[in-house]
């Protein structure tokens, strides 16, 4: 096991090196100031507290959707609805923040709770459709994302839009509802604490409770789960309700933490990113923060590069793709790994271990 971990570290480093090499090539081909570009990309995110703050700010929503997706994938449910759940969570935060007046602390908590509930509803519709009619959740969740988007857009346009604003934007989110900044000089907000708690909770939920056990067993072998007496229909729904709840919370927290008004006109894309994070984290909640921070680092580095040098921001998309593909590539360096295994096995058998 230890050996495995060491190998994973080697492999991940290699993948990052390869992706950086690809990045380097693109940067050298297209830039007149490759040195500057590279520096911005690699050290930019940690060259000031604020930049590092940007990484963490971005990692917060990624952790939420990463957790949401992890839980659903753990149950083998390929629900891509984290996107819609996250979005509707943001909408819910807008509704509660603007329509309800509550004291500090309570206000955001209620908003987040409501966001979670709406997220759970949106994301679990595909689960019901699957359990009831056996409709594939992959497709139905994709469709629901759009439906959530248009519901949100309708609410914003017809009920929450500040007529005094030049663009489509809701009324201002009142101070009572905002999540406070917890580190001066950055925008890192209390959402970080909430997500940290969620990471631990999700881990315990999945690996230490009977519900988590049910989810894992159902995900690994549904028929075995049924045979053992687990109500898999319930589990399938539960996993998606739970995933949706987390995604929705994430959306609410994003809006209350970083926005003055709700302005989303399109799906924010964190659902897709959540899939990347979950897969990087191998669906383990404890690794989700690592995956999220890694992805956030990449994104912020890329932004800083495109802002601080002549490299086009779109290049970053290519670099990200390469990194992701190589890191998750199972058989990348597997030959090398097999050689290691073989050597080890050989050694053992020479020693006569039976």
């Amino acid at each position: 096991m230890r050996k495995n971990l060491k190998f994973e570290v080697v492999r991940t480093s290699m993948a990052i090196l390869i992706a950086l090499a690809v990045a380097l090539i693109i940067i050298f081909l297209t830039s007149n100031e490759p040195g500057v570009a590279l520096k911005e990309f690699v050290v930019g995110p940690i060259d000031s507290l604020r930049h590092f703050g940007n990484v963490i700010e971005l990692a917060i929503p990624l952790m939420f959707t990463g957790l949401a997706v992890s839980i659903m994938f753990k149950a083998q449910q390929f629900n891509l609805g984290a996107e819609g759940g996250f979005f509707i969570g943001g909408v819910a935060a807008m509704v509660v923040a603007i329509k309800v007046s509550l004291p500090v602390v309570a206000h955001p908590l209620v908003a987040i709770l409501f966001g979670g509930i709406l997220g759970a509803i949106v994301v679990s519709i595909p689960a019901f459709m699957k359990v009831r009619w056996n409709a594939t959740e992959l497709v139905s969740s994709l469709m629901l994302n759009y439906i959530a988007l248009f519901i949100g857009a309708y609410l914003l346009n017809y009920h929450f839009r500040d007529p005094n604003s030049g663009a489509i934007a809701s009324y201002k989110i009142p101070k009572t509802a905002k999540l406070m900044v917890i580190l001066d000089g950055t925008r890192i907000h209390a959402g970080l604490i909430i997500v940290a708690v969620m990471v631990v909770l999700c881990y315990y939920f999945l690996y230490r409770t009977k519900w988590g056990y049910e989810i894992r067993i159902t995900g690994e072998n549904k028929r075995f789960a049924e045979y053992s007496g687990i109500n898999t229909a319930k589990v399938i729904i539960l996993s998606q309700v739970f995933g949706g709840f987390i995604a929705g919370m994430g959306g609410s927290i994003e809006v209350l933490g970083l926005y003055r008004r709700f302005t989303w006109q399109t799906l924010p894309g964190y659902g897709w990113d959540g899939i990347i994070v979950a897969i990087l984290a191998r669906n383990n909640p404890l690794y989700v923060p690592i995956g999220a921070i890694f992805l956030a680092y990449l994104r912020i580095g890329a932004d800083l590069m495109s802002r601080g040098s002549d490299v086009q921001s779109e290049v970053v998309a290519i670099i990200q793709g390469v990194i992701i593909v190589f890191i998750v590539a199972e058989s990348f360096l597997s030959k090398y790994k097999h050689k290691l295994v073989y050597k080890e096995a050989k050694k053992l058998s020479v020693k006569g271990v039976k």
Partner: protein
Amino acid sequence: MQNELLKMEKITKVYPSGIVANDGVDFSIREGEIHAICGENGAGKSTLMKILFGLHTPEEGKITLRGEEIHITSPTVAIEYGIGMVHQHFMLVPSLTVAENMVLGVEPKKGLFIDMDKAIKTTEELSNKYNLHVDPRAKVEDIPVGIKQKVEILKALLRGAKILILDEPTAVLTPQETKELFNQLKLLKEKGHTIIFISHKLNEVKELCDRITVMRNGKSMGVHNTSDVTEEDISRLMVGRDVVLRVEKEKASPKESILNIKDLVYVNELGKKALKGISFSVRKGEILGVAGVEGNGQRELVESITGLESPTSGSIKIVDNEVIGKTIKQIRRLGTSHIPEDRMTYGVAGDVSIEQNIISDKYDTSEYNGKVLLKTKTIKERAVELIKEYRVKCNSANQKVRMLSGGNIQKVVVAREFSGGPKLLIANQPTRGIDVGATEFIRKRLVELRDEGSAVLLISADLNEVMELSDSLIVMYGGEIVAYFEDTSTLTEEELGLYMLGVKKQTPEEIGGVINA
């Protein structure tokens, strides 16, 4: 030595998981012989054959065919060298027809399209030539296992196989079908084919094979002429000690009935009656065997009792509780345990640890589950205990079940289902495809369980097994019970076979004896 057809030398295979499945194995066959490979589960038989068929690449070793070194890098290459393989598990595409399966990969063409007529004709001709009768137009998903087995053999022959590898071909066959298969294999041998035959059933090996290679722990234990060794010798070579094939058991002393089934009818999705009103009961302290060719309603029966499927009508009572309409969990809570026929599909989650697999039926009881969290320490301790008690060969309780060999996976299932003193145990093919050592162990346990007061319903296609273990026996044919034997000690395999094939049927009065209200 003179007519060595094929030789594998010093073959070493290490799986990515680190398991050394073959460790410098030497193996050779002569032209025109039937050569058996025997060995416990996980001894490396399948692996060796998969290497020969190009499905795996060995780390070391060489293969020579008629003295020339060859490199078998893929099944295509193997097929080119005239090697064909019938796998332990069927390798057929269910939604395609027999003919389509036959020609898959070697399709006859008419222009750009497949020449379906020719495919059908070829199949018919081949099937006539080798006396292996199949319907080329039938969909594979609709044909019985025996026919599937034939299709598999024909497939290999169609591709010009001169060397035919059969990996446990008889595991799913009835005695009659096995006999028929053996006749055909002998016929093939006469026609000049060379056959490698893998089986756990030593009597079959004795009957069919000329020579035998025994494997243990990834190593070859040597080659013998079958006529020179007894079954006991082979067993000893396989497990490295003497094994008792007979299970010692006292006569049963049945008490009150635990399972009562009345007029059970099961109509499947196609509208076919798979169970046509079955009634019987199983008593505390007895093993009731169910014999029968697969596909005669046994699966539906088991699924109805365990709650995996809901029957159409009738009644199933476990300790006086009607279970139709109850959930699987509720049925399990009544004290029902179930060893499924297909362990990888129903019995375990392969990528989950042994420990987690062992608690799957009781994870939410107060034994393992606290107020909020699972009692991880208790779970671990209990798992380690059971691993010891059931002699599961593994590195630790955290090991993934998939890493174990078939027999040890079965032990994990058995450990879970036997522990906790079930009132009713449904054992469906409990020793299928596992080695002598494990089989012996599981059978012994089954009897112990009976003696401790469980009611056992044993379904097995292995006649030897049902006859050996059962106190009394029913035979199923066409969704009905066609015979009941209160005492199995005087029964012969041949007689049983006649009932299983529907040739004979007892009177309703005789059958009614199985109902003990």
